[in-house]
């Protein structure tokens, strides 16, 4: 009870801040932009963690789903919906981006989960490459030059809202009774099947949720950067998200938030070093794997992301025989 109030107050404070910061210029534009990218990175890391951490599979196609969401929502706001239309235009575009990504996720998941093991990694890798080269060859969306003229609709309150929503949905999914099937599959897939868990359905559902939020992040990203090109969503983007997930810790929502924050902050702090950044970041990752192979919060979580304690059901002390 107490906990719910604390979380509610924190969220309220966050929402107020996300509105006040741009309104009263509390931070300089650079810091504001960094904060917004941080929100997007949290969405990306949390959603990838659902597949790679909680489900225990290995997907490397997250940038591909992000691209699908980014292009779908940008096409909607640039080409289809009139400029200056009602307020629902932007959330609708983001939802559409998420749904497009989730549908693509379904198409990828159906063949990929037919078999066990490393197939998902290969299928998602191929998928990300297909998305990138397909976008490069569609002239209507700018081909390799990219899509220009996207409005800067991603504001801080929107990004805050979507970040909270994605963390909330994924956390609730993992700890719901059907979602616990995800954890069971990671622990012991055969035992999960023997307990009646429809493992294929659980996997596909988890994969679609993860792709949906990757698409949402893509849409927010497109309307923040105001320019997207296929090259943005190549394998290095996926690698960045993987680093956030493994840095923060697999199977931990708090870990994904910590990982995304550290990654975003480090990336900005190391910016003055130029190319050397590309040396230091991987080096840090190697050190982390040596000393904390499960990441900073691997398989643990902040108490407020764990389910509240269920009232213990004591069986009656004596049982009439």
């Amino acid at each position: 009870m107490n906990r719910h109030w604390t979380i509610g107050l924190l969220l309220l404070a966050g929402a107020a801040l996300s509105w006040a910061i741009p309104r009263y210029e509390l931070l300089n534009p650079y810091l504001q932009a960094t904060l917004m990218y941080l929100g997007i990175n949290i969405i990306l890391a949390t959603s990838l963690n659902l597949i790679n951490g909680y489900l225990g599979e290995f997907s490397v196609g997250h940038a591909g789903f992000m691209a699908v969401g980014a292009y779908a929502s940008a096409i909607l706001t640039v080409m289809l919906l009139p400029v200056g239309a009602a307020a629902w235009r932007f959330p609708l575009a983001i939802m559409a981006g998420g749904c497009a990504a989730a549908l693509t996720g379904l198409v990828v998941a159906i063949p990929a989960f037919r078999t066990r093991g490393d197939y998902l990694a290969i299928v998602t890798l191929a998928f990300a490459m297909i998305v990138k080269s397909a976008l490069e060859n569609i002239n209507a969306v700018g081909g390799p030059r990219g899509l220009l003229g996207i409005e800067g609709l991603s504001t801080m309150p929107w990004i805050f809202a979507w970040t909270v929503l994605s963390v909330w949905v994924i956390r609730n999914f993992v700890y719901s009774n059907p979602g616990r099937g995800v954890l069971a599959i990671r622990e012991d897939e055969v035992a999960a099947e023997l307990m009646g868990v429809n493992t294929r359905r659980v996997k596909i559902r988890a994969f679609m949720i993860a792709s949906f939020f990757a698409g949402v992040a893509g849409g927010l990203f497109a309307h923040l950067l105001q320019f997207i090109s296929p090259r943005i969503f190549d394998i290095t983007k996926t690698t960045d998200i993987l680093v956030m997930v493994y840095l923060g810790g697999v199977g931990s929502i708090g870990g994904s938030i910590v990982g995304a924050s550290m990654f975003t902050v480090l990336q900005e702090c190391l910016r003055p070093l130029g190319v050397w950044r590309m040396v230091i970041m991987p080096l840090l990752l190697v050190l982390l794997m040596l000393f904390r192979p499960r990441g900073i919060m691997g398989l643990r979580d902040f108490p407020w992301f764990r389910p509240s304690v269920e009232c213990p059901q004591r069986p009656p002390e004596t049982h009439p025989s």
Partner: protein
Amino acid sequence: MTSNSQINKSTRLTDILLEVRDLRVRYGHIEAVQGISFKILAGEIVALVGANGAGKSSILRAISGILPFGGEVLFEGQPIQRLGSAAIVALGIAQVPEGRGIFGTLTVKENLRLATWNRRDRRAITANLRHVFDLFPRLAERQRQLGGTLSGGEQQMLAIARALMTRAKLLLLDEPSMGLAPMLVHEIFRILKDINRTGTSLLLVEQNALMALKAASRGYVLETGRIVLHGTGRELADHPRVKEAYLG
């Protein structure tokens, strides 16, 4: 309880719960199970005994739908060989897998709740939970502990309790005595008999042949994928061939 078991004996013992016809399992070129047929009547304990590699576990995995196989399996007269594992569990066949298959990072209670994965009847689930906690008071004490922190015997109890949470009519038990101290094995078997008395049928796969045959009403002896002997549990336990081969 007593009246319940009498009903089972008088009216239902002749009902065939599970019928396996000409079951075959292959791994590549090797046929591990070479055409096996057997029946389990409602309310029975049936033991499948045999040495390592006789094909016992393959038979259980095939029945549960996690291993492709040839032949026919009928549960309550209905063919189930084309159903997926989830549907088979929903029909009332649950397996306690070899090595227990406990979800180590989930609590005892979460492990149990997982078996009710696709059920929505909260009331009945709570009643089920109370029932298994009555059977295994030790699990009730430890319901908030992580599955991975339990001892071997407690994990075996949890695995059995979890299978019961599916409201199974037939429990398939793969080596429930494996790796347990003799005292615990006796306790587990005592509980299994209690479970059977409430109307649940058991198919018991064991290397510990004597223990299994003594508990079972009927038994089948397997050798390299074939049934070589069949009889009541007592008969088989005293059979010279069984004694020589498995009991030393």
